[in-house]
């Protein structure tokens, strides 16, 4: 063996992955070809009966891109009803599974993409390259990660509570997925139009804590337990500012339904400033508060000390490996996506276009663009801000964020009674800014930022 050999040694990696890693474009072409073959087959099978209805459904969807998913679903259901004479309950089931399948596919892809984009962006922030080995620009990295996760050994500690250890990742994932069911993706496109959507969202967020507790306690590991306790304390504390920030929006739009809240933000002032809540003083403050609390709710940096590697290995996920760890990972990311989706619906105008002459772009695209911008913002924050200390974290929640939440509610009320306008602007801006400055001063006096003194390591 010559040590100057330049080829990386890949002979023992599984053949398929090896093939994919070495010939990314070839693999992509193969995948596309396979999809085409399967798609043609399915179309051929479907086309056996009443082909006219099928083409009509497709044409219908193409004619109105803004409502394409809805029209496609309706067209397909119509086709199945008339072409294949489905019974009503079969139609109902098909409709449900179509929605679920679409949601899972879309968010699965976004999740995979995010896990890659996060690593890429963080790497670039730290002036590194990031994953760029598997496929072009590392695009197949999520695939490789998934394969790696799935073929890893599933380890259950000897002293673990087996049932709780198994159930915890499921209980974490289910609420995260359920949140996706009520997000307003576009006009009339929320999978479930729930009148108490906001409450549903917070109730699901609350059930996540039980999952965290089960993971922490069921692992029979001190790091898991301490991490879980920290995580629960943090989630309970930050749920309050999250709720308060959402409450201001609920007060002004007069509804708990995400659809109604998005509808309340339609229209443009001076025909170019959209009527989003983020463009009001209280709304802006509420958005910042909501987003900060959302970062803490989904245990992301700088509030990720439940899983602070330096002291707790991985928090409540310490004893998890393989598929269960992947489920935790997925729950975390889907939770982030859901909470960002809520931030978009509450403050960023949901599916509304930011400018009137951009309305030809379909609403669901706007929704996902905004959603992804928030995810990128979260990644950006993660690359910037160092992890907080435990007492700072709690102090920040109880001494700064919760009083600010009350101030925002007050500002929203003043805005409502002033009816917007200059008076509303000035009054609510003052009501938001004064506590912000005062509390910021108090917090920065109480937890002064000082240069760290290294007693031993620095000469």
């Amino acid at each position, binding site marked *: 063996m010559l040590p100057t050999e330049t080829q990386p040694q890949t002979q023992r990696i599984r053949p398929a992955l090896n093939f994919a890693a070495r010939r990314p474009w070839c693999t992509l072409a193969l995948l596309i070809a396979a999809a085409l073959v399967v798609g043609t087959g399915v179309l051929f099978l479907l086309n056996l009966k009443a082909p006219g209805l099928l083409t009509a459904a497709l044409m219908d969807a193409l004619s109105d891109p803004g409502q394409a998913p809805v029209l496609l679903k309706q067209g397909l259901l119509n086709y199945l009803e008339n072409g294949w004479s489905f019974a009503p309950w079969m139609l109902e089931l098909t409709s449900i599974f179509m929605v679920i399948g679409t949601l899972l596919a879309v968010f699965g892809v976004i999740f995979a993409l995010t896990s890659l984009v996060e690593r890429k962006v963080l790497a670039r922030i730290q002036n590194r390259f990031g994953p760029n080995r598997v496929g072009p620009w590392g695009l197949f990295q999520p695939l490789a990660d998934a394969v790696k996760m799935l073929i890893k050994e599933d380890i259950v500690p000897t002293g673990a509570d087996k049932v709780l250890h198994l159930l915890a990742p499921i209980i974490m994932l289910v609420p995260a997925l359920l949140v996706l069911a009520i997000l307003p993706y576009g006009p009339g496109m929320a999978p479930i139009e729930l009148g108490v959507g906001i409450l549903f969202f917070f109730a699901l967020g*609350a059930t996540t804590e039980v999952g965290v507790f089960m993971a922490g*306690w069921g692992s029979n590991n001190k790091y898991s337990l301490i991490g879980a306790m920290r995580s629960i304390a943090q989630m*309970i504390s930050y749920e309050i500012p999250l709720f308060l920030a959402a409450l201001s929006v609920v007060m002004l739009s007069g509804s708990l339904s995400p659809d109604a809240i998005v509808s309340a933000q339609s229209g443009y002032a001076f025909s170019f400033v959209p009527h989003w809540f983020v463009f009001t003083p209280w709304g802006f403050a509420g958005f910042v508060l909501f987003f900060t609390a959302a970062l803490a709710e989904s245990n992301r940096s700088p509030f990720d000390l439940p899983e602070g590697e330096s002291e707790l290995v991985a928090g409540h996920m310490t004893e998890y490996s393989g598929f269960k760890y992947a489920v935790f990972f997925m729950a975390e990311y889907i939770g982030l996506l859901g909470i960002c989706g809520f931030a978009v619906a509450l403050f960023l105008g949901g599916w509304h276009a930011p400018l009137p002459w951009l309305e030809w772009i379909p609403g669901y695209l706007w929704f996902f663009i905004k959603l992804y911008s928030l995810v990128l913002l979260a990644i950006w924050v993660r690359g910037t801000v160092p992890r907080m200390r435990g007492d700072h974290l709690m102090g920040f929640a109880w001494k700064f964020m919760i009083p600010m939440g009350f101030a925002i509610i007050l500002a929203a009320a003043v805005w409502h009674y002033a009816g917007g306008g200059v008076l509303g602007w000035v009054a609510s801006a003052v009501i938001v800014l004064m506590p912000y400055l005062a509390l910021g001063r108090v917090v920065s006096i109480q937890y002064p930022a000082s240069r760290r003194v290294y007693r031993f390591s620095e000469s």
Partner: protein
Amino acid sequence: MNSLSEIIAFLLISSLTLGAAIAAVGLRNIVHCGLSLAVFFVGVAGLYLLLGAEFIGFIQLLVYVGAVAVLIMFVILLTRPEDEAAKLPGLRWRQLPGVLIAAGVFLVIYLAIMRSPSLLRDVPEPAALSIQAVGEALVSGHLLALMAIGVLLTAALIGAALFAMEGEDGK
């Protein structure tokens, strides 16, 4: 409220609730009791949803599963005796009076229910609980109760914090 799907949902949710309740009072590991209580609360919330009270159901989830169950679990962990595993004694003979009393109470309630045919009235499904109506009722007819609840919650919060705080004068 008699469609097949509703009956199936009722059977599933009520058996879940009952099972979780039995587990919550009967299991020997107290952490399992706490977790079963959380499941029980989820089941009760499901029953509320089944009965058409969405708002109450989600409030139940938020308050009970998110706060009360987690609080109970925190206290379980904080009061775990160091020397023994968190196991409680199983069923003993001296618990028989408790069982008998509970069974007696159930019997009385059961007989009372069975002897009231007026309960079997068939009523049309009422309109879903609208939040606007609830809010208006809260701040108009029940304002005093709302204020009293606010005061009570504040007092309870302060009291609980004071109790749980480790005092200056030792433990």
